[in-house]
């Protein structure tokens, strides 16, 4: 069971979903605080859900307020960077680039 978890984790790193920042997080966990990674990850998922929802609402409105979208993306990118969610971070950067050039199709 433990080996399977280790394999899954390794593949997340190999596929570029996670980067070395995640390792930094793991190193902050110890016997006195054994749930740190879980707690941070939970906060991240809650926060991401909130942001994605806000972005979704903004896109549905159809008026494409690029500044507001960019602001949401900046927050999303920030927390993804802190947790080591490398692919998410890359997608955010691309999204923001589209915002910058006003590309609504992208």
């Amino acid at each position, binding site marked *: 069971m433990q080996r399977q978890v280790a394999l899954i984790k390794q593949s997340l790193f190999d596929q570029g979903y996670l980067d070395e920042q995640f390792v*930094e997080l793991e*190193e902050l966990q110890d016997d006195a605080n054994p749930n740190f990674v879980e707690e*941070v990850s939970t*906060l*991240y998922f809650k*926060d991401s859900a909130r942001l994605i929802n806000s972005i979704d609402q903004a896109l549905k409105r159809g008026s494409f307020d690029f500044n507001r979208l960019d602001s949401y993306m900046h927050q999303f990118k*920030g927390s993804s960077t*802190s*947790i*080591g969610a490398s692919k998410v971070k890359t997608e955010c950067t691309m999204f923001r680039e589209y915002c910058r050039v006003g590309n609504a199709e992208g």
Partner: protein
Amino acid sequence: MAEVMRSETLNISNNTSSLASPELLHVLAVDDSIVDRKFIERLLRVSSCKVTVVDSATRALQYLGLDGDNNSVGFEDLKINLIMTDYSMPGMTGYELLKKIKESSAFKEIPVVIMSSENILPRIDRCLEEGAEDFLLKPVKLSDVKRLRDSLLKAEERVFKNIMHKRELEANDIYSQLKRTKI
């Protein structure tokens, strides 16, 4: 006369250190991101610091008693050794917070460190010019925090040693005066 000497030596141990408690730095961390707040709090705790975390510059000013409510009661006891703030925050930015702190007579000596996920040189320059102690690129690493802590502790040690040295000179002075009057 021996009584006088004793009370002088007793005073040496008071107020020689602005540390919150022996060897424990008290850090005020400011960040609007809940993930980053959790992260920085853990980094600081792991580095043996006492931490207070707030979610906005406004709340930071409230905590310090600088929000214009004339709340001067109690901030004498508030010993903050370091303020770490995110740059980009809604409402008041970290830069504006830095300026307000440097303008206050009570807190301008406290080192302020700015954190940002964006490596923008003019921004970094502006913060350093305004008196920021350091500018850290996010994600902040444990090694960054340790480096900060060590340099702050060294600075505190220097201040402590200077005060001790001064007290020693004063004590020696009193002693020689006593000798001269042949008590």
